[in-house]
């Protein structure tokens, strides 16, 4: 692990998974659909069963092992958390 770079080349096998994480990060409409019915939303992007299971569990290590980009995992998770349990911010 220590010899691995923190940010690795995203394997093409993880394209759909990364596409889904990207949409959770940046697409408000997709995120809303995901929060309403995660399986249906993941189905839109044709996520495979194991990717979908790891995402539903919020299993960061499994997602990274499957080729998810760490920054996308981080931001997708953060956006979902903020929607589920609003955080109070001081806005500047």
């Amino acid at each position, binding site marked *: 692990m220590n010899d691995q770079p*923190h940010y690795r080349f995203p394997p093409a096998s993880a394209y759909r998974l990364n*596409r889904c994480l*990207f949409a959770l990060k940046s697409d408000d409409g997709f995120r809303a659909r995901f929060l309403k019915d995660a399986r249906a939303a993941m189905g839109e992007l044709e996520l495979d069963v194991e990717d979908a299971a790891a995402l539903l569990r919020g299993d960061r290590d499994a997602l990274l092992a499957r080729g998810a*980009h*760490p920054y996308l995992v981080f931001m997708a998770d953060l956006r979902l958390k903020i929607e589920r349990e609003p955080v109070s911010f*001081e806005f500047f």
Partner: protein
Amino acid sequence: MLVGAFACAHTPQLLARPGTEDRDLVLRVHAAFARVKRRLETLHADAIAIVAGDHVEAFFLDAVPALAVYVGTECAGTFGRYRYRFPIHEPLARAIVEQGVERGFDLFYTQQAPLDYAFYVPLHFTMPEPAVPIVPLHVNVYLPPQPTPRRCYEWGRTLGEIVRARPERVILMASGGMSHFPGTDRYASPEFDYDRRLLDALKAGHGRELAAITGEELDKMGNIELRTWATLLGALGEAKADVYCYEPSWHHGNAVVEWPV
């Protein structure tokens, strides 16, 4: 002509502060941003050419440019509740992309792409009054393989030559850094000593050292975004950095720096 050069952190918690962030620290960084804003007003800039690394917002895996120039008439983006829009200095943007390509840099350009928060955060705090148009210049930092620091430095040298030959008064601004590891196990333990050593080298005018750092080292030190600084330093040569602030939070080394031009 080039009239000013700055580097600014773009940590999103400086814009929207959750309870996890030290308020006094955030305000000290804001004070450094306010100094930059006053400097920009004194310098009577016509445009800000801002070098930042898109956080997989404009450029997903469908197309991953190493170096890109926004050349539309305006650009816009969103970040949480923030909605922003900036006019682009189109003649300057066109000159940069056309002359950059002419000089051997195979630049990607876009006339319509979302503007990432890495561009927005420094501009939110430092945009002079009255506001000036911008030229967003993207450097790929998050999607390997990224351009090498040396390549960024060389691009910066050419960018500096292009800007210096222009009639407009141009500010170069690098957005990003310093050490942080979003999404990894290292998030709460950045390499602050590395940042401080690097800032000492920059204060001594050794900006060229950034060109010699490997991409591997930047990744190891949480400083993949310093490719934007390497670009800026290519335009500046041996100028000595004036460090307005270095404020390490629990997850991020926040720096604001000016270089004489």
